[in-house]
């Protein structure tokens, strides 16, 4: 895959600058997008309204009455050059454990309602389909591949607090699953989904086109801010977060739900520095060191 040496700058009307780092998804492109976003945030420029880093691109909303568009483009160009030239490609972030009940009855029931006209394969469930298109033996093997290596939150959005996740494995090991042929009108809240090379966790109930593999046990969007993890903000995930999915059975899922109801649930998480070059050079070894950080809590 060719890595673009400079981003493509284009405009979404008179209020949005769109910066495409690369056409294809890669860890490097995402790292550059997030780094430019952080650097732009740090500049605290008058007229910047919203900075939305995405998988391999960046969307910046600005007020052209305050910040002339030519000036914004110039500033971002300079930041892009700085980010690309920097040898210190380290992201201060955290690793979080997300308990998931894979192959659960909630998503399976919903999946069964959206087969004919929605799904590529009417028989079996979404996990069976995902295993088949990836040449894996069965759903169990797919589930193992999904949770054994950690993921990077490459973007937050679509709806409130929904994380897109990109798995920290070599390109050859990356799982790819087509989206539904036509989007469902219903998806249970906290469904763990999959489309293209991205996993996601649906923060709220609603429409969705990603394949459904399981259900996360604890909320990731909490407008009531009842849980401790939401004391500062109603949205849990930030771009750059590292996620380790932990498979749980029904009993553990119910136990976590009870803790959520009681207001006592806390996510297991710990701060880490994410080193891009190490992650690219030795994905498997680096994955182990990330997991050790989490296991050391």
């Amino acid at each position, binding site marked *: *895959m060719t890595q673009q040496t400079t981003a493509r700058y*284009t*405009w*979404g*009307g*008179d*209020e*949005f600058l*769109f910066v*495409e780092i*690369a*056409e*294809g*998804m*890669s860890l490097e492109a995402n790292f550059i997008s997030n780094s430019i976003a952080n650097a732009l945030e740090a500049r605290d420029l008058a007229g910047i*309204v*919203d*900075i*939305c*880093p*995405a*998988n*391999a*691109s*960046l*969307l910046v*909303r600005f007020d*052209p*009455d305050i910040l002339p*568009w030519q000036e914004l483009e110039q500033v971002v160009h300079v930041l892009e050059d700085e980010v690309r030239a920097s040898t210190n490609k380290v992201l201060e972030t955290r690793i979080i454990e997300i308990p998931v009940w894979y192959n659960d009855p909630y998503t399976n029931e919903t999946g069964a309602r959206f087969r004919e006209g929605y799904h590529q394969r009417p028989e079996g469930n979404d996990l069976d389909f995902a295993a088949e298109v990836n040449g894996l033996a069965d759903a169990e093997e797919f589930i193992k591949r999904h949770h054994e290596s950690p993921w990077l939150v490459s*973007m*937050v*959005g*679509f*709806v*409130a*607090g*929904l994380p*897109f996740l990109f798995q920290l494995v070599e*390109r050859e090991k990356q799982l*790819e699953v*087509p*989206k539904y042929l036509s989007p469902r009108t219903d998806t249970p809240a906290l469904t763990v989904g999959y*489309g*293209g*090379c*991205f996993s996601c966790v649906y*923060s*709220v109930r*609603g429409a969705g086109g990603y394949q459904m593999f399981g259900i996360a046990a604890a909320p990731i*969007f909490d*407008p009531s801010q009842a849980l401790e993890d939401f004391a500062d903000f*109603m*949205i849990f995930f930030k771009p750059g977060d590292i996620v380790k999915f932990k498979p749980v059975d029904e009993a553990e899922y119910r136990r976590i739900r009870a803790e959520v109801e009681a207001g006592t649930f806390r996510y297991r998480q710990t701060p880490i520095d994410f080193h891009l070059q190490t992650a690219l050079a030795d994905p498997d070894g680096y994955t182990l060191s990330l997991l050790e950080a989490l296991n050391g809590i």
Partner: protein
Amino acid sequence: MAFDILEAGLSTTVQDQGRIGYYRFGIPQGGSMDQYSATLANRLVGNTAAEAVLECTYIGPKLVTRADAVIAVTGAPVDVFVNGEIRAEYERITLVAGDELKFGVIKGGTKYFIAVHGGIDVPEVLGSRSTYPIGAIGGVEGRALAAGDLVPVGAAIDNGLPALQSIDVVDRPVFSRDVNVRVMLGLYDHHLSAEGLESLLTSEWVLTPVADRMGLRYSGPGVGWKDREQPFGAGQDPSNIVDAGYAVGSIQIPGGTQPIILHRDAVSGGGYAMVATVISADMDLVARCSPGTKTRFVAVTMDQALDARHDYSARAARIWS
């Protein structure tokens, strides 16, 4: 002070100037879909432009005021009734405690706005009172109004301006069934074939009934895409991209068939190529269109978009001077 909601209407929500700055988390800007109409209503009742109003969709609510109130209705043409007597839109209306407000059949557009002196006084969430139903925040319990709701109205405001009895006809918005919407090409327009681009800009697109605060879908001849190898992670259809942030007002054409304009409650990102964006000055115009409206997308430059933005601001500023 409060309104008792006897009937909710089809989809009546609390809206203001929007919840700006949280799009990065997937929370849309929201706000009155037709900002200019909403600002006229606020001007008539003696508010500032920032007060929250009720946005009505096709069928408005039936409500009773618990105290004397000054209200105004603006936006899409509709008959306004106070205790069964017809009253004019775009005029200041005085209600006394116990008066009943209801509406006739909408005669154009889709959205009209009820402002009340003091503003709709639901709690602010992330700096705005606008309703975001998917995230269940803002408005009344994060949802559209329901019968039985008590909608709080804020205390009196002094906006420092002389009272205005009615909006001059020249200052009122027009509700047309045939519109030119100005757009700026860009984002992923280079993925369109030459014929696809020409089709986008020369075809007559017709607004379908699949239109709401999130987006508006148009029927027409469709567009073609250039042949290309899809990059890693983008998905197989030529209309797919690696999921990216969506500009508010951007136009995507899933499968190349029906263009969708994302509006104020847009999803913040996704995997469909955007090929143009409605300029900020024409977002209200799009909000005023009802299904069946013939629409042409007219390409303008950034400078033309900024001139139009300036004209829009100047028009709104005149109302507040």
